[in-house]
């Protein structure tokens, strides 16, 4: 059995606001194998970004376990060991604002090296050029200012920065959401190649299911802080079980006739995502669920395994 590089168990992250407690992440379990890409998919309010931020240490979990290579990392970044900080990295959503506009590219990429003790400036410069080359940027980019770069180039720089410390695990928080589709293709191809070359594991947070179809090994769907369904990608797209998964899939606009045949039949989308402060009782999807049963508003379903590696949290599948 392959070693699990990341294990998340009953993870919860609640925020206290003046309107009430926001249960952004409310009991999430998943794990990721070494070398795997897990796609974490959800709409706004699903908590997918909060999961990523909690794993990377920008938030501290309210409850639950997060194990990286067997070691607990339920700590803020400042309290983590240097080796954990080196091995876990994140690429943020908007490449433009991920780079300090007042610094040069080489300073930005050199920073992680400096922080982890490599103070030899000349060596670092070489490493910076190496990293730029890995993301297919020439060494001239080192002295440029981030605002002179295009969106795609900025995205590459953020990836180069994430690779600076030789990480083993990268959280990709919608890295291409702000980019055009032709540039997204380049960046994603590059990310896949890097994964193979450097044996990386990815947690790919996204709202774009078609993208996940082509990138992720497994897919996990989140709704209002909980995971609804997890499955291997091909299996999920062929046989989505949870009503929310079906609703999501049927809403994707497709560009080809072939895709249209593969997409589930249009399910009428009812209602809007409720406010996370005022969650519905029982299964939080029940107000919008076309297959609602009487038990749904009363009891929150538990995760069951329908097949090997296909779990779903829905009363329809509980025996």
């Amino acid at each position, binding site marked *: 059995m392959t070693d699990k590089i990341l294990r998340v168990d009953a993870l919860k992250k609640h925020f206290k606001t003046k309107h009430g407690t926001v249960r952004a992440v409310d009991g999430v379990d998943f794990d990721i194998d070494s070398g795997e890409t897990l796609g974490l998919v959800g709409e706004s309010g699903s908590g997918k970004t909060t999961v990523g931020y909690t794993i990377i240490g920008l938030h501290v979990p309210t409850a639950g376990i997060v194990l990286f290579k067997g070691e607990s990392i339920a700590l803020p970044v400042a309290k983590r060991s240097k080796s954990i900080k080196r091995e876990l990295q994140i690429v943020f959503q908007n490449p433009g604002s991920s780079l300090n506009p007042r610094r040069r590219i080489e300073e930005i990429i050199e920073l992680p090296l400096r922080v982890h003790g490599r103070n030899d400036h000349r060596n670092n410069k070489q490493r910076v050029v190496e990293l730029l080359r890995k993301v297919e940027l020439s060494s001239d980019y080192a002295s440029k200012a981030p605002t*002179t770069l295009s969106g795609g180039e900025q995205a590459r720089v953020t990836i180069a920065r994430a690779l600076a410390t030789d990480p083993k695990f990268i959280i990709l928080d919608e890295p291409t959401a702000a980019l055009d589709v032709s540039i997204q293709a380049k960046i994603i191809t590059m990310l896949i190649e890097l994964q193979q070359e450097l044996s990386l594991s990815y947690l790919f947070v996204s709202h774009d299911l078609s993208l996940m179809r082509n990138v992720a090994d497994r897919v996990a769907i989140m709704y209002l802080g909980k995971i609804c369904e997890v499955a291997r990608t091909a299996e999920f797209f062929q046989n989505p079980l949870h009503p929310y998964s079906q609703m999501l899939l049927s809403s994707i606009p497709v560009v080809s006739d072939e895709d249209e045949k593969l997409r589930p039949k249009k399910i009428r989308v009812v209602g809007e995502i409720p406010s996370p402060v005022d969650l519905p009782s029982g299964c939080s999807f029940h107000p919008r669920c076309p297959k609602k049963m009487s038990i749904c508003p009363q009891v929150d379903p538990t995760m069951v395994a329908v097949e090997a590696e296909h779990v779903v949290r829905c009363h329809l599948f509980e025996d």
Partner: protein
Amino acid sequence: MTARYLPQTLRGFQTERFKEGYSKFTRNPFSVIGLSLVLLVIFLAIFAPFVTPYPEHAGSYVNFKEINKPPSWKHLFGTDLVGRDVFSRVIFAYRYSLLLAITVLSLVVPPGVLLGLLAGYYHGTWIDYTIMRITDIFLAVPPLILALAVTSVLGPSMLNAMMAVCLMWWPWYVRLVYGLVSSLRNEYYVHATAVIGASNFHILWREILPNCVSSIFTKMSLDVGWVIMLAAALSFVGLGAQAPTPDLGTMISDGATFLPDLWWMSMFPSIGVLIIVLGFNLLGDGLRDLFALEEI
């Protein structure tokens, strides 16, 4: 879309940015007027002894044969109650005004910015609350009253006036920087550096502060004018510089009782205040427009 027709190296980029900035700045005639006035004032202040016709009149000098003379070619701004040339005194007064402004700002800006950085970065914690509530207290006291209180306790003098102004001024920088930092600390690049493991010191000093600097400089430029006004107000009520030091406020005050007959004694120092304050204000506006982000 980025402006890719701009040069690509940082040095080239900075030169181009400078040229851009120059043309942006000079596009507004008022900014240029402001800059010119400021440069003029600075020049006069530095070279006062060489530029003025009667440098010795700036000190203790009396000449009862020349008292209360209206403006003439001999005395451009006329003479005052003891025969001193008003023109020379106004220019020397500029020295003290600028000196006061520079001193006050040097004393006030570093601690104000530092406190603002800390309060903003630790937003929501006791550090934030403590710093900001103390700041609020100072802001709640009407400025002139605070200054009056300080100088009446410690005695009227230039130095004490400066201290009073300092006490009133630092909270504004805390507020300014607090606001900036509270929003900047949520930028993705700050998170990214935190995740890499950079220390809080690094983040504050090297990531956040450089992005505040332009606002701070703009405010400083506008403040020079205000500090001078405030000092003039204090001197006007007798709590600032004492005789025989030439000071704009004192000169206005001394001449005020003789209005409208001996109008030049108050009028020209007032215009002096106007010029210096207006100059710095226009310059500050120009700087603010200059630093404003433009999307192409």
